[in-house]
């Protein structure tokens, strides 16, 4: 078992990062809020990827969380930020609970395609539903926290930053504990060989379903954050390029370290805002080159920059995988 940070140390880290927000300029604050929210959904993809399945349709749960929160906020006037996050997570989780067991029996490219298809079904339905504003979407009000409303935009930004950092941070701690648990290790075993896992008496399908559910909950909560940050929602939340970006963060991070997800998400947001500033209209190009570079030079993600322990010896495992596919010349 790899040694990692103690959960208490991580809680202290989260508190420090939250307080540091006081000192940050406003533009960094909103950037960090989006980065934390994207990190949350990418963390879900990493959790799921440990079973060997990559979801290209997390936009489905992202949009479900966002739309769920937006509808409840507009109908019943629910503005509390924490409550909105919980509602978002619940919306994503409910959907994940239904879909997870259905698609757990697929793997690899079919898993990815099916999740993509489902998110596009949702997108297609959203675009055409006039009650939900069609392709334009609709607006929601400013969130409050525990009965306090924030009129000063600086304070409101900080509140959102604090909530997103704390929620994402605790999700990160939960994921770390999960990764080290028996269940987390069984998930890795499913990735290596699901049939052998079944022979050992575990249900690979159930392991995948539970991981899928966790990913869906994270995605729903992330949708709630995106909604609060933009105070607007539209079907783009469910489009496949949105999901692609989250997979991008997950690949950038690799699946060895939770901290890497946060670093990757922040790196992506920085690259995006700088290329917006200096290379307008070409940020996708920058992003694409960046992604190719990471896949080529850091095949195990940026987490491999600081985690170089005994896992390094497992590289031959990748070679056997190649052999199984029929060795490419």
């Amino acid at each position, binding site marked *: 078992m790899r040694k990692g940070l103690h959960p208490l140390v991580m809680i202290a880290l989260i508190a420090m990062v939250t307080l540091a927000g006081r000192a940050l300029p406003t533009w960094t604050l909103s950037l960090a809020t989006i980065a934390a929210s994207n990190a949350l959904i990418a963390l879900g993809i990493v959790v799921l990827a440990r079973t060997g399945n990559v979801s290209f349709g997390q936009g489905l749960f992202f949009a479900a969380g966002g739309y769920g929160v937006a509808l409840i906020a507009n109908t019943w006037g629910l503005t509390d930020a924490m409550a909105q996050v919980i509602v978002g997570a619940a919306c994503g989780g409910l959907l994940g609970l239904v879909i997870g067991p259905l698609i757990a029996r697929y793997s690899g*490219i079919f898993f990815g395609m099916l999740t993509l*298809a489902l998110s596009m079904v949702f997108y297609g339905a959203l675009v055409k539903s006039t009650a939900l504003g069609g392709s334009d979407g609709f607006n929601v009000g400013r969130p409050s926290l525990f009965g306090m409303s924030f009129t000063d935009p600086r304070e409101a930004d900080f509140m959102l930053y604090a909530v997103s950092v704390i929620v994402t941070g605790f999700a990160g701690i939960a994921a770390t504990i999960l990764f080290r648990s028996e269940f987390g290790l069984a998930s890795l075993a499913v990735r290596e060989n699901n049939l052998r896992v079944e022979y050992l008496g575990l249900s690979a399908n159930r392991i995948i379903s539970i991981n899928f559910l966790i990913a869906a909950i994270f995605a729903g909560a992330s949708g709630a954050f995106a909604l609060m940050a933009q105070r607007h929602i539209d079907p783009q939340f469910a489009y496949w390029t949105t999901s692609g970006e989250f997979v991008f963060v997950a690949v950038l991070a690799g699946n060895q370290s939770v901290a890497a997800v946060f670093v990757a998400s922040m790196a992506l947001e920085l690259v995006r805002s700088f290329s917006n500033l200096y290379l307008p209209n070409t940020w996708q190009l920058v992003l694409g080159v960046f992604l190719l570079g990471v*896949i080529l030079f850091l*095949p195990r993600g940026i987490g491999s920059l600081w985690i170089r322990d005994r896992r390094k010896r497992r590289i031959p495992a990748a070679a056997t995988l190649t052999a199984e*596919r029929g060795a490419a010349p």
Partner: protein
Amino acid sequence: MNFFLTIVLDGLIQASWLFIVALGLTLVFGVLKILNIAHGSFYALGAYIAATVVTMVAARSLPPSVGFVAMLLSVALIASAVGLLLERGLLKMFYGRDEVVLLLVTYAVFLILEDVTKLIWGVNPIYATQPYELFGNIEFAGLYYVGYDLVLIPISALIGFAIWFGLNRTVIGKIVLAVIHNEEMSVSMGVRVNRVYAVAFAFGVLLAALAGALTAPKISMQPGLSSDVIILSFAIVVIGGLGSVEGAAVGAILVGLARAASVHLMPQAELFMIYLIMAAVLMFRPEGLFKRETARRI
């Protein structure tokens, strides 16, 4: 009855160009085992190049038929070159990696090409309507159709037949099939797999770009074209079974008919319908309609 015929004909017109795109996608997957997200970008590339060529020809006041032939030739030339370059220069470096990693590599290529097309052709809609009047209007069972649309159907049928014939009845095709079935064995039998890879990928790009060129006179070219097309062609190849030519044909017809039917009956359900079909097919036949189950190693 007439209404029904309209849907079927519209569906077949849609299916004809979708089939050509999907054929490229399925071929690349069959040979290289790459699900190419950038495939839609090659379609857009073909459409944009065609628009430029058609506009250049029209500016010299040459007849539209010259424009039509010139656009097909130039697109074929450029697309093959781009395909060879990408395969040899980029994709080659990633062979042997996981399928999902290769998917992401093509996603990166998609992102890059998306901006490259914007840089070259700008973000405003571009049109190339001159060849659209080439075949006049045709009356068919009391309905008037633009001749160009109807001509697309035999063209795509011809392309489909040529590919089927090439794969199943020629030596080169047999070699490609051998690589599809067992790469390792092909290498040991003396097949230059690298070359097959490069040619297959370039051919896939060529098909996507040709479909783009053929549809260019019908549509307006603008950003977002590639992501719409790739989503449709994904649905087609997944419905038909990845790597299957017959599957691509059946998938294209299904998707074309579904599109036409929903446009005429329930415009709000278009994308929804297509993806519902795809999800349903995946639920009941995860390997697609036309793919045989394969054994796996434990």
